């Protein structure tokens, strides 16, 4: 549902990142890293991106989405593990003091411009 707003920000940041000296730039790929916890639906994001890039230097660009797993660390025993089932409790010592060290990403990593 918030994919449209996210897509608009992606397009704005990508457009701002095109070096000024390039004439008639054409962006071919946009590389994103999106954490599983962020609840962005990749297909919706791709759809929104396609709609709003029509007629811009990003038209036709491929949106590569690297989905980052949810990784947690126990503050009590230091154990690190990948969360699959939305249980944020340490599997080792049962502590509830758990820190999410990856899985919330909503990052734009790089763009690929046609030569």
């Amino acid at each position, binding site marked *: 549902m918030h994919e449209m707003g996210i897509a608009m920000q992606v397009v704005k940041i990508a457009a701002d990142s095109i070096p000024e000296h390039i004439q008639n730039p054409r962006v071919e790929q946009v590389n994103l890293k999106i954490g599983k916890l962020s*609840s962005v639906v990749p297909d919706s994001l791709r759809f929104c991106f396609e709609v709003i890039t029509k007629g811009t230097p990003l038209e036709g660009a491929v949106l590569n989405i690297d989905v980052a797993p949810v990784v947690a660390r126990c503050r009590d025993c230091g154990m690190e593990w990948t969360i699959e089932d939305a249980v944020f409790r340490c599997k080792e010592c049962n502590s*509830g003091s758990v820190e999410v060290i990856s899985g919330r990403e909503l*990052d*734009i990593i*790089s763009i690929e411009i046609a030569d």
Partner: protein
Amino acid sequence: MEVDVARKILDTNDAHAGQNRERFAAAGVFVLNMMSSPGSGKTTLLEKTLVRIMPKIRCGVIVGDICTTNDADRLARSGAPVTQINTDAFGGDCHLAAHVIGKAADAFDLENLDLLIVENIGNLVCPAEFDIGENARTVVLSVTEGEDKPAKYPHMFRKCDSAVLNKTDLLPYLDFDMAAAEGFIHQVHPDMPIFQLSAKTEEGLSPWLNWLTTQVAENRSAR
């Protein structure tokens, strides 16, 4: 040619949220962001809450609604200053963004408020992603929804500082398993305070009011 970008997609929103947070701290106002699915009872809970805590706690409310002013009208009856934000159903406005809150805050005399409550748009997904510069977050879940909502929307339940389980007056008519619901909440967010209450009958309202007023008092004494 590959160009490194390395930016957070929502960095503009985060920057606005940071500005809001500084401004709220300077004015000494505590900001609560209240979120839920549509119809879980946020407005009803706020109506009852305002009546009980005002005028001892000076409150203001920002309410986001897709296209009506009904919620604002209901809340204004409490006597608290209320600002309504109407968002467009298009353009991804399924949440209140930080710059929108910043603008809405201009309508208040922040120096003379202790508590500013933001009733976010009814949605368990998007508002979790957008920092608005708040001090605390509360999620409202009603017993007419599934017990497993916390496991389905873990981001929201992890982000929030307390949870309200509303509409307990309806429990006799439903198969809602309260222990399972609390279990799901604590599985996603161990130790999160949970308040079972009925905003309609006001049963169970006191622990919630105590939590809220304690937060506001701590904020005031931290100045």
